[in-house]
């Protein structure tokens, strides 16, 4: 729907004694004075709280709209084309407004709900909202304008999986008859109940289609339905009943459906059961002359009702799936898979060997131990040990002598001074625990981290607004740049400075201030250029 689609134009409408035209657009109502280009009044339907009309018989035919903020606008209809023309005009406007106002209010509420949901789902966004909108740095519209795209896509996703509302299992008993007068019951049926009845009893729907317009009235049909339904409960057969056929049909369908549900190539339960008279409840009892148990009937009806309810849901969800899987005698792929699983044995199948490329290694030993290059230059190791006058032999000799004289003295292996020294090294903040100590401190600084992140979020959001205005091509963008620059300055002066001064390490906030400074210097450049152009 285009935003400025004109739904209704009513000429000869006075507002504050000025003549003009009242136009109802698709989302707002405008009034334009005669001869003027721009509408003098313009407000959205969602802003209107209520509309009032002048009482019958009053001299002036007027319509008043009261907005949510309390202001009201009165329009005086003055069409003199024929007597009652002004009333006709007014009524047209009134009727249309009566439709539009609730529709828009609903829409507004839905928008609001979506927004609150978005905020609740996304704590970062909520924080941003708090920082920017609640802190009066940008307006709510600006905030949401940027989110509009994401929001739309979100609502699209929501609309794709519309879920049909299920049926209350007790819906029939909820239709309570009111007794009025003698021997008369009155049922109040609404569209929902009728739809529910149709869903639950397809046979009734069929009958309704067949009979209602031509053979009987709607009222008659339902009267007979209720009469018969009680009848149906007791299952006494009288030939005159219109719904007797329905009951039979229902029963047939029930049986058929059960059988179709349980159809399985591997199990055949439709065959006569080994135990006669049982048939797992799926075969029709062979002797119909037997009076069935009352409880049997009750169970049957319950089962039928719930299976219909389930079916009405399954129909919707499986419609799209079934379209793809209509091949192979309409068997669902899951069934085929099951069948395959039953008839195939893994160990009888041919072994599938994937042939991978063989790694050709010339010499396996070489691969494991590297290329045997004996030309390796003497390692640094050797040189480092042979420098000076000392050499291997003397070191070895020394070591040998040392070990020769070794007598284990385990009680004096460690002096207590050394041990204490090491203990301090390992204590938090000690030589080796410096990293872990800062780690522990960092944990305490969690709150600072989250706050820093919030500031980053808020500032980047503002900066995004700011930079998106460039290049400044329209007056609107110009205004926005100005506003954003002011917002940024405000944010820096009020919130950021406070935060940075509270930080132990002010360098954390440097990047933030730098980002804002760049934006502001850009804005100042822009201003200078503008003044230059003006001067020249």
């Amino acid at each position, binding site marked *: 729907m285009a935003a400025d689609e004109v739904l209704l134009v009513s000429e000869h409408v006075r507002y504050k004694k000025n003549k003009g035209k009242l136009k109802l657009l698709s989302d707002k109502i405008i009034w334009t004075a005669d001869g003027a280009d721009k509408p003098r009044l313009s407000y959205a339907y969602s802003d209107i709280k209520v509309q009032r009309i002048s009482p019958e018989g009053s001299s002036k035919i007027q319509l008043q709209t009261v907005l949510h903020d309390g202001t009201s606008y009165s329009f005086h209809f003055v069409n003199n084309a024929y007597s009652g023309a002004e009333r006709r005009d007014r009524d047209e406007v009134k009727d249309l407004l009566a439709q539009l106002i609730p529709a828009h209010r609903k829409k507004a509420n839905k928008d609001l709900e979506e927004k609150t949901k978005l905020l609740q789902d996304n704590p970062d966004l909520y924080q941003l909202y708090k920082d920017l909108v609640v802190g009066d740095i940008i307006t709510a519209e600006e905030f949401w304008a940027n989110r509009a795209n994401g929001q739309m896509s979100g609502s699209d996703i929501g609309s794709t999986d519309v879920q049909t509302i299920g049926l209350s299992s007790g819906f029939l008993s909820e239709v309570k008859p009111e007794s009025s007068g003698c021997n008369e019951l009155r049922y109040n049926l609404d569209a929902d109940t009728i739809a529910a009845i149709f869903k639950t009893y397809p046979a009734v729907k069929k009958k309704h289609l067949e009979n209602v317009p031509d053979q009987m009235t709607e009222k008659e049909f339902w009267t007979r339905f209720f009469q018969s339904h009680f009848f149906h409960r007791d299952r006494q057969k009288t030939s005159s009943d219109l719904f007797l056929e329905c009951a039979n049909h229902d029963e047939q369908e029930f049986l058929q459906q059960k059988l179709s549900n349980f159809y399985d190539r591997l199990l055949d339960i439709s065959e006569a059961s080994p135990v006669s008279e049982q048939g797992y409840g799926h075969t029709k009892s062979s002797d119909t002359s037997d009076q069935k148990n009352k409880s049997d009937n009750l169970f049957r009806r319950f089962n039928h009702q719930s299976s219909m309810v389930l079916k009405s849901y399954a129909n919707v969800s499986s419609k799209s799936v079934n379209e793809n899987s209509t091949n192979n005698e309409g068997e669902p792929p899951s069934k085929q898979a099951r069948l395959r699983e039953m008839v195939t044995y893994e160990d009888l199948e041919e072994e599938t060997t994937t042939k991978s490329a063989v790694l050709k290694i010339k010499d396996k030993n070489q*691969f494991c131990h590297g290329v045997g*290059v004996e030309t390796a230059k003497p390692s640094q190791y050797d040189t480092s040990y042979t420098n000076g006058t000392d050499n291997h032999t003397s070191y070895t000799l020394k070591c040998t002598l040392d070990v020769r004289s070794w007598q284990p003295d385990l009680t004096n292996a*460690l002096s207590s001074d050394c041990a204490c020294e*090491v*203990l301090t090294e390992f204590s938090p903040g000690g030589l080796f625990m410096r990293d872990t100590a800062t780690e522990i401190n960092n944990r305490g600084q969690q709150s600072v981290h989250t706050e820093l992140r919030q500031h980053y979020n808020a500032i980047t959001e503002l900066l995004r607004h700011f930079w998106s205005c460039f290049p400044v091509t329209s007056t609107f963008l110009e205004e926005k740049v100005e506003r954003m620059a002011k917002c940024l300055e405000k944010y820096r002066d009020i919130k950021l400075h406070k935060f940075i001064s509270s930080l132990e390490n002010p360098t954390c906030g440097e990047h933030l201030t730098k980002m804002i400074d760049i934006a502001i210097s850009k804005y100042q450049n822009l201003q200078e250029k503008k003044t230059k152009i003006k001067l020249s």
Partner: protein
Amino acid sequence: MAEDTFRRLLVVVCDLSPIWWGKQAANASENSDKMQPINAFLNNVLVFCNAHLMMKHTNELAIVCATSSKSQFIYPCPEDVSDANGEESYGNMDGKYEHFATMNNVVVDKVKNIIEEESADDVNLPENSATLLAGALSMTLCYIRQAERNCPVGQSMKARILVLKGSQDVSTQYMATMNCIFAAQKNNVTIDSCLLMSDSGFLQQASDITGGVYFKITKMESLLQYLLWMFLPDPNTRESLVMPGAVQIDYRAACFCHRTLVDIGFVCSVCLSIYCQLLPRCHTCQTRFKLPSAAMTRPKKKKKEKTAD
């Protein structure tokens, strides 16, 4: 007690390179009087080993020592098991727990033997002086495998390796060492490394890959305290302890051709061999590579033609 189903095996790999220890001794001799570094070291290791055994009666211990000519088990010693009489001959002189006394005595004897042998051999082979870390690790892993297999039913072995190493890495051992490290990782064996005086790239990688602790010690006189503090708790216990932060790990690999550590190398796309220079053909898998220079020239020519047009 569920805890009792685990037998904790600690294998201590000691670097007993006589050259390195001799050098330490020479450096330390200026401020003499103190115990010789190697003797102090061995004392510390023995205390640490006793501490491990003392933690729980199911704890097991093995000690491997590596020199530049060979790696050898010094505890438990296969030869000593045969002559059980020898064990008793060590005696129980000062009321020490027998298990400890036996172990200490075995270690002392074996270490003395090894060093004697080493000094005799080393004169003949002066240039091959690197500690055989890879060999010692291989032996350890084999021992752990065996111990796991011999583990009593209903119990399982949790093995870890502690490497005590002073001498420097030799890049010729790169392949073998890395293979050991990956084998340890596959077998869920943790390698802890305690470096004496100098860092080791190999062991940094080993501990990082197997989830062990890497630690460099500069104060040799406090070695025992470091050992008890850092390496006595098993990896499960360490999770609940605050350990020193991680170190920067040297992940440089050694090339296959010259066995030198390379910062930027060339890797064969087929067999993943590493080379320090561009080769037209991989030495290991004989794959021929197209030289990039040939491919590079063509587009340049086309560009030139285009500009000429």
